[in-house]
């Protein structure tokens, strides 16, 4: 049986099962107080267009083949028993094809609840790989150097099932349990690369005119893993005290341990000439790549609320979590340092959060909370790392976060309310593991602390106009910067500008650790000039400014967004809605002797929709959405730029903009044949243009050393069409 016929067989089997289930649940003689509603939907849908035309619209669809179509089958059955107080709802959509959704909910309100779901999602990367690679998507791909290859889609399918149960044991006590498991299968963009010679691999020699001394290989990461989760909770809800004790468990298991490519003796060099690999490079490229190991996590928590009075309330959460990873190295096919069988990965996290809120006066409401989270990395330390003859260990990553927040709300009048808030956060990343070493990092920092102040005012200025305005400002500082010892460990530097002991010119200080000034502004208003019309306006502005001992790296960012939304009820039968939005993001970044980058992203979008009842039996709707996104990489040159960089920028003119324009038109029409059945037509037309140099520029593809390329058709136009018939009974 071929793969296609196997899929068809399984689809038919699933459809038959669905129809049988539906027949079983077909309406029975009406019982007193029992209402049943059922709907069956049958139809056909298709994504019209060539395969290359629909990679963006069809990203989460199984309809990627040319003019692909599939049947539509869905149903819904609901049964409400007013006498017994129970509700039953079984719903399923997209039963034919590779994406399905089904859910069941059966409940007696206030007494018990049973739920179940089945879900299958498919994602196909909008990029297509063109490669001669054999066994793409497996753990043992065979690299073939060839400039003519076949198209390979990178796709990941997730199939999940789950059940849940809730039961009220008494008026104050309840318990719940949920279990779910998901299988993830497919492959995604991945690969390896090496350039010789290298300090970390002296055995290989570099490129010349008779050998390839550098290679990048596209090797799709194979995925076949299961993730299961269980969650249980026991809750007591008294008059003043409500407390809940819960457990969460997560278990990840990967069927694959390593990706081991088979690499040929010759590959293409950067100018496309097929040459033998330099000595040493072949063995490096052939080494196995570790895939994600199995891991587990457990969490116990105690969460609750104590209502001291109608005006004062406390809430709290205490939790203990443990993340583990003990996959055998030998079992995965790897050789570990002597005496080490697995990582011994163990990270324990304790969280304690308490909050209080109270109405001090009828006009003044205050609240505060304190949060403490301590992540203790107890993973075993061993000498995994070798550079030349030096060895050093892995690094522990502990982290303690303490946050305190307070806020006061004051009701100035019945129509005006103000808020003042303050927040303080301290992060301690623990002492750096003395036997570990940094790489590619100028500076680290153990502690950072940030203080934030916030103020906003909300007002209902009239019966038809209300709005709010808010500002926020925060400042981050931290402990002394830590400098690499050029070996293992780091040393605090009291004066980063010190010529001898400070940091070199060109050092990079991470934006996650650097001193930062952050300011935000928000404005919102809503205006209802007529009963039928509502206009909403929103605007945000935010700026981050980084202060570090170096002028290089990320220096500042700015974002701003504005949107206007209008909704009009034209009549009882018709409504119109539309919006216009604009977002801008700017960041400035630089590197020593290199670029001064001013990056700007501008996103403009607009939408217009109308829906209504055209006649007694006709419902129609249309919606059009336009998006224009432009990314500008404007480069200048550092004053220390070398002549090669100067010449390169002058010769190339810099990086082209990356742009995407997209227009989507959605139409639907529904005709009521009679009071039980209807016909529906859905159309989605999407046209888009993408100009992105990631995988090629000016007709020159980015090519891997085996000739593999990745591509996506820049101009795409596809039409999604669905025709369905629904029969509904009561």
């Amino acid at each position, binding site marked *: 049986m071929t793969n296609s016929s196997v899929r068809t067989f399984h689809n038919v089997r699933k459809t038959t099962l669905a129809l049988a289930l539906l027949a079983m649940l077909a309406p029975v003689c009406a019982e007193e107080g029992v209402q049943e509603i059922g709907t069956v939907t049958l139809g056909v849908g298709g994504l019209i267009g060539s395969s290359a035309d629909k990679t963006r619209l069809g990203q989460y669809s199984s309809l990627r083949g040319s003019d692909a179509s599939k049947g539509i089958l869905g149903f819904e059955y609901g049964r409400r028993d*007013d006498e017994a107080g129970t509700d039953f709802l079984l719903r399923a959509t997209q039963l034919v094809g590779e994406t399905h959704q089904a859910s069941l909910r059966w409940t007696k*309100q206030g007494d018990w609840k049973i739920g179940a779901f089945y*879900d299958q999602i498919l994602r196909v990367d909008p990029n297509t790989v063109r490669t001669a690679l054999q066994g793409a998507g497996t753990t043992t791909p065979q690299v073939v150097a060839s400039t003519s290859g076949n198209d390979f889609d990178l796709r990941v399918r997730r199939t999940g099932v789950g059940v849940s149960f809730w039961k009220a044991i008494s008026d104050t006590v309840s318990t719940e349990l949920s279990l779910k498991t998901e299988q993830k299968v497919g492959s995604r963009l991945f690969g*390896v*690369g090496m350039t010789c010679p290298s300090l*970390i691999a002296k055995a290989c020699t570099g490129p010349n005119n008779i050998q390839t001394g*550098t290679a*990048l290989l596209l090797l799709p990461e194979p995925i076949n893993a299961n993730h299961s989760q269980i969650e249980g909770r026991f*809750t007591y809800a008294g008059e003043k005290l409500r407390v*809940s004790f819960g457990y*969460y468990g997560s278990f990840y298991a990967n069927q694959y341990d390593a990706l081991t490519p088979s690499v040929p003796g010759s590959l293409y060099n*950067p*100018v496309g000439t097929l040459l033998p690999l330099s000595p040493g490079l072949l063995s490096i490229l052939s*080494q*196995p790549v570790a895939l994600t190991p199995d*891991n587990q*996590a457990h969490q116990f928590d105690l969460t609750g*609320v104590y209502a001291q009075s109608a005006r004062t309330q406390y809430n709290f959460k205490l939790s203990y979590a443990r*993340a583990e*990873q003990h996959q055998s190295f030998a079992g995965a096919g790897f*050789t*570990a340092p002597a005496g080490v069988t697995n990582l011994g990965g163990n990270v324990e*996290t304790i969280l304690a959060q308490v909050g209080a809120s109270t109405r001090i006066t009828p006009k003044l*409401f205050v*609240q505060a909370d304190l949060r403490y*989270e301590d992540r203790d990395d107890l*993973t075993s330390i061993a000498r*995994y790392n070798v550079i030349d003859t030096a*060895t050093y260990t*892995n690094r522990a*990553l502990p982290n303690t976060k303490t946050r305190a927040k307070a806020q006061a709300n004051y009701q100035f009048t019945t129509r005006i309310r103000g*808020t003042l808030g303050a927040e303080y956060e301290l992060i301690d990343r623990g002492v750096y593991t003395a036997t570990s070493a940094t790489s*590619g*990092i100028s500076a680290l920092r153990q502690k950072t602390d940030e203080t934030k102040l916030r103020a906003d005012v909300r007002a*209902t200025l009239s019966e038809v106009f209300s709005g709010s305005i808010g500002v926020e400002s925060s400042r981050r500082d931290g402990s002394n910067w830590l400098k690499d010892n050029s070996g293992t460990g780091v040393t605090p530097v009291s004066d980063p500008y010190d010529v001898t002991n400070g940091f070199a010119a*060109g050092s*990079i200080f991470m934006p996650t650790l650097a001193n930062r000034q952050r300011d935000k502004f928000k404005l*919102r208003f809503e205006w209802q000039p007529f009963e039928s019309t509502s206009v909403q306006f*929103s605007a945000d502005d935010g700026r981050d400014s980084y202060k570090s001992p170096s002028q290089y*790296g990320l220096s500042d960012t700015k974002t701003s*967004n504005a949107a206007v939304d209008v909704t009009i009820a034209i009549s009882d039968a018709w409504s119109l809605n539309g919006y216009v*939005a604009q*977002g801008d993001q700017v960041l400035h*970044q630089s590197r020593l002797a290199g670029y001064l*980058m001013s990056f700007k992203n501008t*996103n403009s*979008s607009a939408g217009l929709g109308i829906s209504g009842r055209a006649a007694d039996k006709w419902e129609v709707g249309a919606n059009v959405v336009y998006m224009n996104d432009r*990314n500008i990489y404007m*480069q200048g*040159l550092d004053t220390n*730029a070398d002549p*090669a960089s100067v010449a*390169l920028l002058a*010769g*190339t*003119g*810099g990086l082209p903009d990356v742009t995407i324009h997209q227009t989507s038109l959605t139409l639907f029409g529904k005709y009521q044949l009679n009071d039980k059945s209807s016909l529906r037509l859905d159309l989605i037309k999407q046209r888009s243009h993408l100009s992105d140099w990631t995988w090629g*520029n000016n007709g020159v593809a980015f090519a*891997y050393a085996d000739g593999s390329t*990745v591509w996506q058709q820049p101009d795409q136009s596809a039409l999604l069409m669905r025709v369905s018939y629904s029969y509904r009974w009561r």
Partner: protein
Amino acid sequence: MQIRRWIAALGVGLVATLGLSGSAWSAAPVTGAAFCVTCHDEDDLPDMSKSAHARKTDARTPDCISCHGASETHARKPANLSVRPAPDRVYGKRSILTAEERSAACQSCHDKDSKRALWNGSQHQSGDVACNSCHKIHANSDKALARAAEADLCFTCHKEQRAQANKLSHHPVAEGKMTCSDCHNVHGSAGAKLAKRDSTNATCYTCHAEKRGPFVHQHEPVSDDCATCHNPHGSTIQAMLKVRAPMLCQQCHTPHVAGGVGALSGQAGVTTPAAPGQTALITSISSGKNVVNMWQGRSCLNCHTQIHGSNNPSATNPTPQLMLR
């Protein structure tokens, strides 16, 4: 519908019974919620007979007064007032109640669930969002409880996220496979930005458990916060990155690649000479650490492929501590 009829029938029946009995009570007026429906009947309000608030078998089911208050002066307008006063609690756009007051009515029943235990002090509560800002009570279907309609409801306020969700690299929210509440607990959470679990990372791991580790070779921003590099609401850059590599990487790491400015294959002077007699930047003897490999393809990840961490313990050179394999 049925609950109103039931209350009205009970009220009328009670009055009729007492009247027939000739008791002194026979003249007692209709009180409580039964009185509300004498004006606010099925012609006045949308059908909510199928909603959870209309379940007569559930002893907790509220009536009109539970949420709107006794509203004596609204029910029986004092003679000295020309305009009938509003009910004690109204929830529409013209309500003068604070968000806390509006939410308090709902919380009197709905704060027993552990998922709402951290409502007080949460972002929505602090931002004056009340229960009825999102939930529709007098209806059989509530947008906030319908997965298909939930994102549109959230986008009413969260416009920036609406724009991001339509970008090229996105979670399948627009396709209906995911929705906002898959990641956020809108009623309050110990996690940042109302993340469902106690941290951003713990929330991401519920679907992306393969990133949890720990690993032999760790990448610190990965274990610290996924949102350091990713924008989960959507981005024009593959893998929902906030900024593309190498710029993202060079915000923390010192560059080690030749070519201090960005340039691409197909540009003059890069793989072909800019002018006759000149040499292209990339030749047969060029290192792999060249400007094209830096700015195109997977950029830094062309070599440093295990960006989320590697569990490779091998001590064979080149050892994997640089996320090479």
